[in-house]
């Protein structure tokens, strides 16, 4: 049995420091096991989030040797060297040690109008082919780990949480917009408060997604194209003007009772 050093960030919003802990390893040990061992044997006050320990719930996001990842999915022996550094994700306000306040993500999600089935299928079992829902299912694999939100430079460096919902919510909007039975048009929201225009397709989000969702290629780029089609396509505009095609229905943005839903930490 080998011993390694786990170098953990310890502290809160007022400041903190890196603290070294010696951890006994076992075969296929993951970083979360190492943190648990410290809690049980050395210092029970180390704060970290986890639930499933099977990469299914998206609770244990952190930066491991500087790389955003799930602690329960990162094996200790995969990390280079005998010292592993674990720090909290950086984009969201720190609460304590490895725990950050991610409630902003839930508040943005609450602004997105939910699935609104077409009148002809509302209340009836849907008939959809697998091939027509494959793409939507890719998006629905999201476990809300917020690692993509953590790396997106619009949120991380430029701190534009006021202007851009972030890649996770783009994935969610895409899952609704591409749902075969949905009847809403969320493009005005996308262009407006959701801020799809802020994304400049660096693909950092896609690289860290533990569910391998093609966030940029499959969700964001098609959404950008739809927004462009609707707002900046002169031919289309002309056809609408002379009444040859109909203006697309707009998303009623006030359809979500956001005054009722409150997400509290």
């Amino acid at each position, binding site marked *: 049995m080998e011993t390694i050093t786990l170098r953990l960030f310890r502290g809160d919003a007022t400041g903190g420091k890196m603290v070294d802990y010696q951890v006994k390893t*076992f*075969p*296929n*040990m*993951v970083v979360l096991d190492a943190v648990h061992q410290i*809690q*049980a*044997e050395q*210092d*029970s*006050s*180390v*704060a*970290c*989030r*986890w*639930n*499933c*320990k*099977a*990469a*299914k*719930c*998206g*609770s244990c996001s952190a930066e491991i040797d500087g790389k955003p990842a799930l602690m*329960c*999915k990162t*094996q200790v022996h995969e990390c280079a060297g005998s010292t592993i550094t674990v720090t909290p994700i950086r984009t969201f306000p720190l*609460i*304590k040690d490895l*725990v950050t306040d*991610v409630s902003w993500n*839930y508040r943005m*999600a609450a602004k997105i109008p*939910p*699935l609104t089935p077409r009148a002809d299928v*509302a209340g009836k*079992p*849907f*008939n*959809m*082919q*697998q091939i027509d*829902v494959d793409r*939507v*299912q890719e998006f*629905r*694999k999201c*476990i*809300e780990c917020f690692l993509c939100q953590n790396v997106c430079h619009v949120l991380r460096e430029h701190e534009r949480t006021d202007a851009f919902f972030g890649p996770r919510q783009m994935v969610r909007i895409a899952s*609704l917009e591409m*749902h075969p039975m949905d009847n809403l048009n969320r493009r005005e929201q996308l262009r407006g408060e959701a801020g799809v225009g802020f994304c400049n397709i660096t693909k950092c989000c896609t690289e860290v997604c533990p569910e391998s969702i093609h966030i940029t290629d499959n969700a964001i780029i098609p959404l950008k194209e739809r927004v462009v089609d609707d707002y900046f396509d002169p031919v289309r505009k002309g056809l609408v003007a002379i009444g040859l095609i109909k203006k697309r229905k707009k998303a009623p943005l006030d359809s*979500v*009772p956001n005054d*009722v*839903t*409150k*997400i*509290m*930490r």
Partner: protein
Amino acid sequence: MDSYETFEYDVLVIGAGGAGLRAVIAAREAGCSVGVVCKSLLGKAHTVMAEGGVAAALGNMKSPDGMNEPDSWKVHLTDTFKGGAFLNNPRTVEIFAKEAPERVLELEQYGAVFDRTPEGLIAERPFGGHKYRRLNHVGDRTGLELIRTVQDKAVGVGMSVHMEITLTRLLKDGDRVVGAFGYRRDTGKFVVFRAKSIVLATGGWGRMYQFTSNSWEGTGDGLQMAYEAGAELLDMEMIQFHPTGMAWPPGMRGILVTEGVRGEGGILKNNKGERFMFNPDYTPPLYKGQFAETAEEGERWLEDKKNNRRPPELLPRDVVARAIYKEVEAGRGTEHKAVYLDVTHRGAEYIKRKLPSMYEQFHALGAVDITKEAMEVYPTVHYTMGGVWAEPEGCATSVPGLFAAGEVAAGLHGANRLGGNSLSDILVFGKRAGEGAAEFARTAKLGAIDPAQIQAEISVLMHPLELQEGESPYKIHQELQENMQRDCMIARNEQGLNSVLAKILELQTRAAKIKVNGDTAFNPGWHAARDVRFMLRTSEIIVRCALERKESRGAQWRLDYPALDPVWGKKNLIATQDGDKVKITERPLPDMPAELKAIVEEYK
């Protein structure tokens, strides 16, 4: 007196798993203001981990002859009784089987995207104990789809979500429950919720065992809060051991391998390479003649479900778990005291498409490629059939103002739950509990909050921080787990149960002297101090009930009473608080009405 924040709602829902969130939707649609409290972040509750599917008789699947499988609520009802060894509450099962299809179809309207059949309908897969293909699924991440769907819907209808708060006591005004008290996990600050009625949807309790598929949340605090408020607990000895938990590597021990692996053709083998489930001794009389008797028939069934019987790997969970236990005890296990689960013959492409998260789980976490090698599996503590007694129509408990639904509640599953029946349980009874609580709230007023009850709980919570020295909560928890694992697992006898009971009582005394370092700000040690006291009491109740039931039925397997006893088959065990003591009484199981009897006769 320490200060605390107070929130007020018509209906308070404790727990944001599938049951809690479905209750939110129902109570909100009935016009109530609703607050929901959970220990984790929204969407991370246990429900997210469910894999295989949600059981409901939609009857969407076709046999090779083009005919639909003749599934119906009546067959589902019969299967549920058989799986539960007829200890289920008849009315609860009836409501469940009838309403499950509606609840699943409704999810689709809310935005769930299930896998499709070639005809474009929701795809259903076979599962242990279900006669027809009935598990509506999304690959092997059905729980994620379900919780995200009700989460988004509940956000849509409007609720107040209080994340990362642990409630530790229900507050009473006379007989009635009028509020709940607890602490914020991040700051340790105290909170009080006042409500006209409360829905308890706090899930199950597996953490008192060493090897469990449950997350840290499964400490049974909700169960204990209800017990301390005077609620009746039903059939607490009934704990499900899922036959296939991961047995290797060590850090992964206990994590679930979905039954979907067997549903998709996975086979169980011992160290001699034998498919031991074909041993006729392992098939209980109730299922004789209903399962394939040769490996060839089992293989043919994968392609033609109509003209072949399903392989015996798909017997109910209690049966398969016992068989694995016996194989390992007889020295036919692997080097890690497990058996093999092999699905390699289905081919890499099929496995990756149908079981993607299993593939990923073993690949990323265990460095095992399940398309090329067999998994090592051993039973793991998985589900709690017992719990707070809830009446079937509106899910009222025996305490006025308190309603219960989901895994914390009891009555539906009897002595053993069929796979997939929990996800439909939480939908059917989550909705009913929300409606029941809303109905109660319509005529009730907010009750009085008694500061003495709050002060008593604050004393319990703060005690471990005030001591200079004492016991570690982790150490006590670990000793509890080792003892429960050894003496209150699959195979039980009087001697083992008595010895674990003595240990629990000793640990309870020691737990009064738990000490933790640090302060109340996000301090897992401090959280564990309260959790472990709840777990000790729950364990005591489980062991006492297991001692009391002197027969083997479903999940309760007594080596010293190996047979089903028809007299016991007519009785539930009820546990209630009697001062410091656990009071256990027998209660006759309600008779099955004649029309249900006729259905069971016809479809069994």
